[in-house]
């Protein structure tokens, strides 16, 4: 439909309507995401009275009461620390396991490669609640229950598909001749990787690591089932805020959402790379 050199009147009309529809859908989609976040922000920064009153104000009143309450809340800092430890472990493990898999997928031809790629994605289709109970039993037997490492293992399984697909796309974007040139210039496979490939994909690897971090940070189900004492922030808030007043729920949600949003925003470019669109 690109070769419409001569626009008939009603075609021009169609095009205008199309553009209007496009703008409307974009606005709607943005609103879909942004409006709830905005309400979250307003209610977090409002005094308890305002949160419970009606009609709602559209301007935050910058009351930091709810947030300061959280800063001093019992167990809050421990949960935050647990979340960071688990997310960090998840990040390290998913890159250590995912990146070599991505490298293998992009550099070697082997039987069942396409099936393997599909299977990696399909692991995401497996419902976590189904896994959680047997996992909990197994973890209790092996002593992994209620540990940061045990939870990080589960989160790593969740993050690996993304780590593999993102790094696969990154490695595919690096011409194999660069590695071959390094081999002829005195490198082994390993040194060629560390001296040539790694510097080139480091930004992408960082992005993929951050993404793994966010997956772990946001995960609540496994965290709630597999930990009791060492709860992560999500599980902790889920547990303690169930009965809490509304303004504290908003503040808790806000604390969870903001780091995830910042991280995802930082690595947005590489999330496209996962599907092999960008990164050229």
């Amino acid at each position, binding site marked *: 439909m690109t070769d419409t050199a001569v626009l008939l009147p009603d075609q021009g009309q169609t095009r205008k309507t199309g553009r209007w529809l496009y703008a409307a859908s974009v606005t709607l989609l943005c609103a879909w995401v942004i409006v709830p976040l905005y309400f979250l922000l307003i209610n977090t920064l409002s005094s308890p009275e305002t949160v419970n009153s009606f009609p709602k104000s559209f301007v935050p009143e910058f009351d930091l009461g709810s947030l300061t309450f959280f800063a001093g809340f019992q167990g809050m800092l421990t949960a935050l620390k647990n979340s960071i430890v688990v997310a960090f472990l998840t990040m390290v493990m998913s890159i250590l396991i995912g990146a070599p898999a991505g490298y293998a997928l992009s550099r070697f031809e082997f039987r069942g490669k396409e099936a393997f790629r599909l299977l990696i994605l399909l692991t995401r289709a497996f419902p976590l609640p189904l896994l959680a109970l047997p996992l909990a039993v197994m973890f209790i037997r092996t002593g992994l229950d209620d540990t940061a490492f045990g939870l990080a293992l589960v989160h790593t399984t969740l993050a690996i598909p993304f780590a593999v697909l993102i790094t696969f796309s990154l490695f595919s974007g690096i011409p194999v*001749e660069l590695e*071959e*040139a390094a*081999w*002829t*210039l*005195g490198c082994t496979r390993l040194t060629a990787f560390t001296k040539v490939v790694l510097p*080139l994909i480091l930004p992408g690897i960082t992005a993929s690591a951050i993404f793994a971090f966010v997956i772990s940070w946001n995960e609540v189900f496994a965290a709630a089932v597999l930990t009791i004492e060492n709860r992560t922030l999500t599980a902790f808030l889920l547990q303690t805020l169930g009965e809490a007043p509304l303004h504290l729920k908003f503040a808790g949600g806000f604390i969870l959402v903001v780091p995830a949003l910042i991280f995802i925003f930082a690595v947005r470019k590489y999330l496209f790379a996962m599907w092999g669109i960008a990164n050229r």
Partner: protein
Amino acid sequence: MAEIQIRNVAKRFGSYQALHDINLTIADQEFMVLLGASGCGKSTLLRIIAGLETQTTGEVWIGGRRIDHLPPKDRGIAMVFQNYAVFPHLTVFENIGFGLRMQKLRNDEVTRRVTRTAELMHIEQLLTRYSGELSGGQRQRVAVARALAMEPDVILMDEPLSNLDALLRLEMRAELKGVLAESNTTAIYVTHDQVEAMSLADRISVMHQGRIVQAASPVEVYRDPAERFVAGFIGNPPMNFLPASNHGNGRWAVADQVFAGPDVSAAALEFAIRPEDLRPADDGLEARVRLVEPLGAHLLLTCDVAGTMFRAILDSDMTVRAGDQLKLAAMPDRIRWFDPDTSLSVPTAA
């Protein structure tokens, strides 16, 4: 001394036989060009020598040392790639010095060798730049400098000029030849461009369907093709062919003319002559001119001889038009004969 010996090397990709039993010896400091159309196996052979590909069978020796089981870095080779493969995250200086740093050379030695090779390739003013800030020709120079800085026994080049534009290619070709002649390195150069092959090579190996059909000096490959394939591949335009039938006693009938040829008992041979080895004459092959293309110094005629397409390159002071009848005489010492069954050259003296 870096004589290269390729012994019975074969390569198979699944059911596809890319190389058949290759045997080739390349003398120390020789400039060998592997010439062939795409898919003939020339790049595969080069990559086997480099160690980037593993042969299915056979051995590769460099300087009296069997190297086919060694990783690329231990083979004493350096390679120049078609797409240059200049490292984008390093400056030109660090690119050229990359191999030297891998050898753990002292800093001042690295600087000395990088500066010298950069001067040799006329890129000393680019040393602080990154590959993204270079033109194609400059990248090519960096790639060559990086290989030369290694001071390798053997330098391998895989179509290094094919991504450059025509003018730059001419310039780089001459420069490469000069630089390599001075470096005393054995060179193997892969190309599909026969002019490039002719102008650079000490010796050309013409490859076809995974075999080396002829390995000889450029002039010999041109004048005495060992196989009909070489005759039809080398030269622009290539050799003309006409069927010849045995007229007895080493005489052969070709399109109503009789030529002296090999004294063999075969019933039929193929007569071959280069377009530039034909002269207009009173007595010769009857040719009907189909097309006249003036090339400045010469005229390229496309004719019809006994129902076969036949090309002749004549002096441009002739007046010829399409549709004219001409008689073309072939220079007797330039006529070549091929066996139509084996497609091998049949020597006249036999």
